[in-house]
């Protein structure tokens, strides 16, 4: 696994270069929005990847609560962090796209608003992990992750209904998609998923190393005390 990692990283970089080229050059120009629409190929796959990472976080959190596996807890932390990074990309590219197309920075677009709430929930999750200094932090965090997951369908429905009452622009992808565009979209999704996987692997190894160092340092301190 360790030797495979650099190869995987290089392959991912190549895949991303290819997918970006597809997005910028190969994909057909959209009729009404023009070339700005190409942001779509970064915005939507990032959202899907972020949602996928949060599902991973939920599963890892449940596994932690039922099996008390420290590795599951590490996976939960890693997927939440990387998920927040991808969410941030969605929240930044969304308004950058909306501004030239609709003249406004923000709309209560379903995907964008849902991403914002997810971002808020998972940032609060990360803050809880950072600020809680009890050894039971993993348990508290896992419970919060479950609460967050329960919240998501409710958020979805509340935004959905709000939008039927107050019609707003849909940021990208309302209606059917040209198959060539779908093809580029899926390639970009594959590339970003690979990126997420590679970054998660690295962060996971970092987390294991961090815990190992903490253990060594506390043993060191203990040795110092007993001498």
């Amino acid at each position, binding site marked *: 696994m360790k030797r495979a990692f650099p190869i995987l990283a290089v392959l991912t970089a190549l895949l991303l270069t290819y997918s*970006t080229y597809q997005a*910028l050059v190969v994909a057909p120009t959209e009729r009404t929005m*023009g*070339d*700005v629409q*190409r*942001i779509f190929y*970064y*915005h939507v796959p*990032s959202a899907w990847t972020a949602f996928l990472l949060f599902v991973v976080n939920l599963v890892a959190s449940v596994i932690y609560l039922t099996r008390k596996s420290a590795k599951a807890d590490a996976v939960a932390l890693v997927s939440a962090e*990387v998920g927040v*990074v991808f969410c*941030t*990309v969605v929240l*930044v*590219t969304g308004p*950058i*796209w909306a*501004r*030239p*197309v609709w003249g406004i920075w923000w709309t209560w677009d379903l995907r964008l608003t849902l991403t914002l709430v997810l971002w808020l929930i998972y940032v609060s999750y990360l803050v809880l992990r950072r600020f809680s200094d009890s050894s039971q932090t993993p348990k508290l965090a896992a419970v919060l992750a479950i609460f967050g997951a329960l919240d998501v369908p409710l958020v979805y429905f509340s935004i959905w209904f709000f939008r039927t009452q107050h019609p707003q622009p849909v940021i990208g992808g309302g209606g059917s998609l040209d198959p060539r565009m779908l093809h580029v979209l899926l390639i970009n999704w594959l590339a970003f998923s690979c*990126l997420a996987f590679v*970054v998660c692997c*690295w*962060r996971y*190894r*970092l987390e294991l*190393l*961090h815990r*190992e*160092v903490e253990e*060594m*340092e506390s043993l*060191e301190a203990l040795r110092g005390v007993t001498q």
Partner: protein
Amino acid sequence: MNAIRFLWAAYVATWLIHGLYIGSVARRYSRLRQRTKELRK
């Protein structure tokens, strides 16, 4: 065209965000490897 600026801004912003995060992971990783070497001595 004015709108192309937004396209580049979005792509650059994406890689900036990813770059900052990956950079911080890399930095912390190398620092911890140093620490491991020190502790093992």
